[in-house]
């Protein structure tokens, strides 16, 4: 069954240098392009850039409750796992800019499980654009709602 929500949700993702440094440190980075303007320029970047998975910070702008309320996927989070995550990049976010995120439900399908029961797979896709309206990156956040207790798998934000 397929019941794609048509609604979109738009929000801002500020890329502050402090948040970039905090995020980079949290994934063990020591590459100075995340911390130091001069080092970033020496590496051919216009300035400090954000690490590849930085845009997960969109949860600060759109917490789960708001996402569910506005996009209406109606998932039961007691049975939901983070199944997959994909990022497609035109470029990395740059410190100092504010990206615009547009989120929608890109996929909502139900499948029969291999061990009985069914599962529902929902992908929230967020396209991030810059102030010129150009593509920066697209993030696809795929959740799996199981019909059984998900205690052996990944939890979700």
């Amino acid at each position: 069954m397929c019941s794609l929500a048509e609604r979109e949700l738009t929000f801002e993702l500020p890329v502050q240098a402090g948040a970039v440094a905090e995020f980079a440190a949290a994934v063990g980075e020591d590459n100075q392009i995340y911390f130091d303007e001069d080092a970033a320029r020496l590496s051919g970047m216009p300035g400090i850039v954000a690490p590849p998975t930085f845009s997960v910070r969109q949860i600060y702008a759109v917490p789960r409750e708001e996402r569910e309320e506005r996009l209406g996927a109606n998932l039961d989070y007691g049975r939901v796992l983070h199944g997959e995550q994909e990022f497609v990049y035109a470029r990395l976010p740059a410190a100092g800019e504010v990206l615009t995120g547009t989120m929608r439900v890109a996929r909502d399908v139900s499948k029969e499980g291999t061990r009985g029961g069914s599962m529902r797979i929902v992908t929230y896709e967020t396209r991030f654009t810059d102030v010129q309206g150009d593509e920066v990156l697209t993030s696809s956040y795929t959740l799996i709602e199981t019909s059984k207790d998900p205690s052996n798998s990944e939890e979700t934000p």
Partner: protein
Amino acid sequence: MSEPARITMDGVTPGMDLAEVVFGPLSRDDIQRYAHASGDFNPIHRDEDYARAQGAPTVFAMGMLPAGYLAHAVSDWFGGPQRLRRFKVRFTTRVWPGDVLVCAGRVLVIEDGLVKTTIEARRRGDGPAGLDLPEEEIAIAGEADIELPE
């Protein structure tokens, strides 16, 4: 972490293995630091009682933390993150405090100006008492595409 072997693009060939990069062992503080950095404050990653009430023996890492380390490894293999064009991961098992993360990859093919790789992060460690986990298992598996320089 161990020092990654940075490779040059003209040295990339299909089938080549990317040198393992090891992170950790992961601490509860690392998980807390990532919670603040990412905005993922799900209590299952910080509150022991809550985690147990949800059927987990203790707290565990949010999947995007080891995924972030894996993206870090991919960036280091290819001389920085700036030529990364796609990064996709599937989460296959939880990562626990005390786990070491072993990031590995292989070049699959070079086509359309992209180096296409398969990547994985394995958790290595005893895991929480009572779970009887394998000493080492794949926690994340995926793919990364890196653009060749002009």
